[in-house]
């Protein structure tokens, strides 16, 4: 395996959150003595990212995602721990480091609000000192794939959110970054616009071999794009591994949807539990590890008359919600102990 492009060891960021005394006298006391709580926004996390990977970095609001990204991009200095990205310590060698990375923050724009899109892109050529031929080649390609032509001469202020996001993606990639941080790139977009952004991310990773760390709270982004997910909550990593193994370990339950040929008041079925019944249509839920679908189907056909049936995996959104809710911890299969467990 080649050298990881991102190496994170025991990374920690602690903020002081001041507690204010209450009341009028308290307000006066605040001027002289202030008490604070220490909040571990990121609590000793470790993980590596290999070149060419597309990693989904997910967690609920306030989990520590943004704090991590800020440290990885050099905008925050950690309280302790090590980060090496592209061979740089981000916050120490910022100017040299940022030349080879790209970043898109879905809630903001790097584009000049009041000028046509073209002006912002032209300026980036000079800021990143991109050679003319590279610039023209990249711009030509992104204009085509992201369909920027209809609004190249439109002031950014007048673009729709989806258009603006495509423009921001283009802006972040003109200088051929080897590593790109995408922070909520689909936030607020409609289904069609989301799909376009996802296809582009896929293209970027597959065709251009760009390493991507995708932060999102939209789990369907991750389900569609990433093989590997890292889940963080309360500053700790809850899971780091293959999306499929996430399903095996946590998505233990599967659904069996049965359409009976006649109405049965309580069509019980061994270990499976009925979670929904609508006339002849019944949905069972069962533990993947304790019983196989084929066994259940056999039992069913022995006892009842069936018109149709279907086995479904529990949607990944549900699985991940369960992980958040139950704070399930899971140690890496490759022996890397999760430091927080």
């Amino acid at each position, binding site marked *: 395996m080649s050298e990881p492009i991102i190496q994170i060891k025991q990374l920690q960021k602690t903020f002081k959150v001041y507690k204010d005394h209450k009341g009028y006298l308290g307000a006066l006391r605040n001027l002289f003595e202030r008490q604070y709580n220490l909040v571990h926004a990121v609590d000793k996390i470790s993980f590596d990212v290999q070149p060419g990977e597309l990693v989904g970095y997910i967690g609920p609001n306030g989990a520590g995602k943004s704090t991590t990204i800020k440290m990885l991009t050099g905008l925050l200095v950690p309280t302790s721990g090590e980060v090496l990205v592209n061979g740089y310590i981000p916050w120490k060698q910022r100017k040299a480091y940022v030349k080879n990375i790209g970043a898109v923050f879905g809630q903001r724009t790097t584009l000049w609000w*009041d000028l046509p899109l073209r002006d912002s892109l032209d300026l980036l050529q000079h800021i990143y000192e991109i050679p003319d031929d590279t610039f023209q080649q990249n711009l030509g390609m992104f204009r085509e794939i992201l369909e920027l032509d209809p609004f190249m001469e439109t002031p950014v202020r007048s673009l729709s959110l989806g258009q603006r996001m495509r423009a921001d993606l283009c802006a972040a990639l003109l200088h051929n970054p080897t590593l790109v941080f995408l922070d909520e790139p689909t936030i607020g977009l409609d289904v069609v616009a989301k799909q376009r952004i996802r296809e582009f991310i896929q293209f970027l990773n597959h065709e251009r071999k760009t390493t991507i760390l995708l932060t999102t709270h939209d789990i369907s982004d991750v389900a569609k794009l990433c093989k590997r997910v890292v889940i963080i909550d309360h500053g700790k990593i809850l899971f780091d591994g293959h999306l499929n193994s996430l399903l095996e370990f946590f998505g233990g339950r599967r659904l069996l949807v049965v359409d009976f040929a006649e109405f049965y008041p309580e069509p019980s079925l061994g270990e499976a539990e009925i979670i929904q019944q609508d006339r002849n249509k019944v949905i069972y839920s069962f533990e993947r590890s304790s019983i196989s679908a084929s066994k259940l189907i056999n039992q069913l056909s022995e006892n009842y008359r069936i018109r149709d049936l279907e086995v479904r995996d529990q949607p990944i959104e549900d699985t991940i919600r369960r992980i958040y809710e139950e704070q399930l911890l899971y140690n890496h299969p490759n022996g890397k102990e999760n430091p927080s467990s």
Partner: protein
Amino acid sequence: MHAFFATIRTSYRRQLTYRAANLSGLATNLMFGFFRAAVLIALYNGQASVNGLSIQGAITYAGLAQAMIGYLSFFQWYELMHTVYDGQVGSDLLKPMNYFSYWLGIDTGRALGAFLIRSLPLFLVFALFYDIVLPPTLLHWLAFLLSLVLALLISFSYRFMVNLAAFWTPNALGVGRFAFGLSWTFSGFYMPLALFPDWIAQLSRVTPFGAGVYVPIEIFLGIVAGKELLNRLLLQVFWVLFLGLLAHFVLARGIRKLVIQGG
């Protein structure tokens, strides 16, 4: 093209897109210019000169000061502060460009645009209505242009630092109001400094505000010449260097604050 000049060009273009703002700014500055000229004429009450300043000189002073408002923007500027509060600063710090140079580029573009469509037209209109004084020699013209450039650098470094207060406090507007009150008062903008009591005039002249606003006007009016003119330019150079270095120092501290305690 160098990133700095590309930034100037982009910012200049942006400034030209603000048509309504530029026009209303021009109209306001012009109206107050006429108003100030009228007050000065009443104040002079027929005297040819007061404290060595002729009535034409005083009126030219008013026109120049009004014209420089848009260009120098010395009395109000919160652009950088806004980017700190809306989070844009993060993207700006991720650009492989010195943060000070980046903003200097933005501000120079803004100043160029404002000079062309606010300052220059205003002064030309003023010259149509009043009998004004022009620089006495070619050297004065050149020195005036140079001092305008230096004045912008002084004004920028000062405003840059004032805006950096946003790195420390969640509402730096108060800091800004106070700081811009200072620049307003001591720049000699209200009234020709020559008309003030001597000690205030002397004090104002050596502040960065006097060096930014009053010095270019003095040179334009031909009040200073020879060695005195050189001294005025040197005073400006001093403030450019001093404030520029101070701004870099404050910036380094500000970034450290930002990256250690978060945005």
